């Protein structure tokens, strides 16, 4: 059994890590992780609703 991690995945927007588990040349399991967190939902909480577009368009 081999486990391969590709981190960072490039040519995308954002940060991504992919791990795959390989048995006899066949992928038996895989995990994707988004490795960056900003907490946009927490920042939006309690704000003037008219500002929501300005913040969410920058996700």
């Amino acid at each position, binding site marked *: 059994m081999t486990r391969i*991690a*590709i*981190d*960072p*995945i*490039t*040519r*995308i*927007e*954002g*940060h991504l890590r992919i791990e795959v588990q390989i048995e006899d040349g066949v992928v038996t399991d895989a995990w994707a992780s988004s*490795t*960056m*967190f*900003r*907490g*946009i939902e*927490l*920042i939006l909480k309690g704000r*003037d609703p*008219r*500002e929501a577009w*300005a*913040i969410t368009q*920058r*996700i």
Partner: protein
Amino acid sequence: MLDTSIQGPLGGRELSRRDFLKFCSLMAGVLALPRSYAKKFEKALAAPQRTPVVWLEFQDCAGCTEALLRASRPTVAELVLDILSVDYHETIMAASGKRAEEAKKATVEQGGYLLIVEGSIPAAEDGIYCCIGGRTALDILDEAASNALAVIAVGSCATFGGIPKASPNPTGAVSVMDLVTDKPVLNLPGCPYNPVNLTATVVHFLTFGELPAMDDLHRPLFAYGALIHDNCERRGHFNAGEFVEAWGDEGHRKGWCLYKMGCKGPVTYHNCPAVRYNDGTNWPIGSGHGCIGCSEPDFWELGVYNHAELHRFTPPETYAPVYPPEQKIAPASAALMGGLAGLAVGAAGVAAYNALTKPEQEDESGDSPETES
């Protein structure tokens, strides 16, 4: 034979000498230098040695990368990518995973590169909120800055914390200049920053061997030396007291001043009115929305639609005030005003008193105030 091609790193491109010289003149203009400097730029940019660049992305939306890549004129983005050797940039590089990290490591070990950073760095809980290749952003920035010639932070997040730092700053986001203290750091804030300003900074660095003059927030003066308000195409309307009062009203349709709709132009330093966005097509105020102040620290706390605090500028009092009094004048106070004016200037004051207290119907009936004086 007439030589129309550009030598050096630009030799392989379909770029005429005329276009290249136009670019050099544009850069002299953006940097507010005499046009004669275009010759110096030409010499520096045609050098065969390309300066390596490591472009790091942390807590970002890739919007600053997009701003650079979406420029359609070859004079901005493509020239940056041709003049420089971009050795590491997650969004555009071909290699991924281990090979990508190895490319960066090789450049960092060699030194002599420009480090460009996009996105803020989460410092809470030892930096676990942003990890690349199994390492924290804190660790990656520390290593990449150690051997760099200079560090350029692009966008509001890398320069001042931006959205991730907006209250309540869940991840403890900090800016590049909070962490890098032993290298020259230049800030190009903006959400997104303007790629023309990055190009001009790079051209300045390659020509003179140093970063351009900066203000106390590490922003280059050529781009952040003037208030948006001072160069705004709608400034005349501010001075004349002509304000948009509601979206879609008469003033909005006529392109009046957006101050009362929350425009932060009077408190924001940026060269947007001159360079604009999307290849000089337009900019927020030009399209009818107020400036949100994106090149200033912590602008998300100002409230997009709250009034900016005016310090140096107030519309002249001879025109309509910024905030017209909401309450109507009470009859008693009107009489007092009329009386006082009458005492002061005699007959003219009496006429004013009469005008103030006269019911509207009488005005419409054709009575002329002049007959009473």
